[in-house]
């Protein structure tokens, strides 16, 4: 298994690369599926929003992220498509 690189402040990464407790600012949403993309936007994943990885499910997927004062669960494969800047 590839060891996860620990990202530092200001690094560019995808949301799925963050470890538990790390925060990041969304830079770009690369989601292709139109309905899914719209839903992610509706849920508040807009450019510039702050997201914290709150926990990861015991089996490694999905992730529980915190944004805009609430918690949202998403699968890793969808978080791979969200570019962020680590804070």
């Amino acid at each position: 298994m590839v060891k996860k690189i620990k990202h530092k402040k200001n690094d560019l990464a995808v949301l799925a690369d963050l470890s538990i407790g790390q925060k990041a600012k969304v830079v770009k949403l690369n989601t292709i599926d139109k309905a899914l993309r719209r839903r992610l936007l509706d849920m508040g994943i807009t450019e510039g929003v702050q997201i914290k990885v709150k926990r990861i499910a015991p089996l490694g997927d999905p992730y529980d992220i915190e944004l805009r004062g609430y918690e949202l669960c998403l699968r890793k494969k969808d978080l791979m498509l969200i570019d962020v800047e680590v804070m």
Partner: protein
Amino acid sequence: MKVALIGNQNSGKTTLFNLLTGNNQKIGNWPGVTIEKKEGRIRSTDFDIIDLPGVYSLTPYTIEEAITRNYLFEEDVDLILNILDSTNLERSLYLTTQLLELDIPVLVALNMSDIALQRGIKIDYKYLEEKLDTTLIPISALKKTGVFDLIQVIKQGSYRKNNYEHIYDHDLEKCLNTLEKELTHKHKRYIAIKLLEEDHAYDEYHQNGSKNLVNSLCENYQRDMEQVIVDERYRYIEFIRDEAIQSNKDHMTVTDKLDRIILNKYLAIPIFVLIMFTVYYLAAGPFGSMTVDFVDKYVSSFGVWMFDTLTNLGASEWSRSLVVDGIIAGAGAMLNFIPQLAILFLLISFLESTGYMSRIAFFLDRVFQKVGLSGKSLIPFIIGSGCSVPAIMSARTIHDETEKKMTIMLTPFVPCSAKLPIITLFAGYFFGDYSGIVSASLYFFAVIVIITSAFIMKQLLFRGKASSFILELPNYKLPHFGFMFKDVGDKVFAFIKQAGSIILLASIGVWFLLSFSFSLEYGVPADQSMLAQIGNVFSWVLYPFLGELSWEATVSAMQGLVAKEQVVASMAIIAGYSEEVSDGIFIFNSQAFSFFTPASAYAFMVFNLFSAPCFGAIGAMRRELGTTKRMWKAVFFQTGIAWVIATIVYQFLHIFEVVL
């Protein structure tokens, strides 16, 4: 007047609806409890209120969300009552910004204002009211505060008829205004925005000039217009938030503390197993069967008493037989299971209202993803241990079509409460001290069957791409015990009603078919009755896992289609009938069912558990799958699997019986 109750999922809509109408709708603490609209009347008024499925946005992602959007568009709604979660204002307001763009007045109820206060969230209501240009009323649906004020405002119509302030940047605003002028429909602003977003569902609204306008604006922005609009909305909300809401941030909530344990990497799954084990130990296991024996004593003595009373009154033989052997033996046998079902319903209701369901979906999603299902499939599965019908309907919250269809087809495999009597009866008689383990093994069996069938279906029927999973984790809530007990009471009452109507009719039908021959001769020996003739035609189907050609068992299993509890009712009638005098329900001592061995008993349970569900559930599958063809597919698939597994189980266990 028509009031539509609109809010995010899990914002407390149904609780408020119940308070406003005095009605009791189903509530729970997982997103998507309300999957169909429900109508009621606001107390002390003649206003109709409609409880609609929760939505995050007016752009639907699942079918149940589309119900809400379509309702607002197609019905003449006079007022939108928008309920917001005060502890989660930022995301809640996003929907409000969309509702305010419709040509319908909006009244905002800020729910959970007490919890917000506890958490140190201070909201400047006046400022918020100014900015949204709408009337705002803080309430707590759970503590029932502010609800009276709300009813008064609705009744007197003393809410602001909002003239929503424009929230977009200058260019966008200008373009929207021009677009609106081109439009002739209701909800101009909302449609103008949809046209800008290039949402094809609204293409029909395009006028000559509007297409060009949209194109030129898109060129200017060089960005996805959908994203531009969402950004602008959230930018406006952030601006309001900074001014109107004060909160001490790094506050560790009760939910956080609980999740540290419940969602802990190592503890999450053991805790889940322990909880589920406790639920089924209490409902299906030794504790549940104890309650059955307890009630059974009374029902049996009631049967004997009735027989004596009718004899003393000089009732004819056939009418005595109808009441005692038909009605009491069949429908009365159902009463035995009421305490057991009440326990099961109470525990499920508790799980639903605490917020634990969403968390199960979260940490087990990975397992279900592997076999082509979603973590959200677990919600129907758990509800399915109560009843398949609401469970099948709750699959609507799953976005992906394949996952949804598979979940619908697999939900009936979960032993529902009506199958509990079958398990209790067989496990209790044949496995005595081990009955707890045997009934637990059947639930375990169900899990394995679901996972392997899902895997097979994924390979054969629905080869598709990996889907997505979007689920909000709600805060934990202490259940409202009043609502919970009412919910359990309603379900128990529905069960009694079923026993008093469908089971009663079916029991009389069985008694009739059993008492008469095809030449309508009363009192023929059971094996010459109509029922026996019908059973004999099909008994070969069950032979491979019963080891016996039994018309009695065959017709009983067939009646599972009417309702699963009817299997037991029918066996009770048939057994009681051949005994001459019906004293209690000594089913397995009767000549009809004495052939059962532990192996065939287990196989018979397996067959009844996994074969086609009752007509009610088949109807629900038909509705949710969309076509009759798919429904038949599901029914044959389920019955086929049940037959194969029952046969394997019997043949395997039978070897031991022969050897030992």
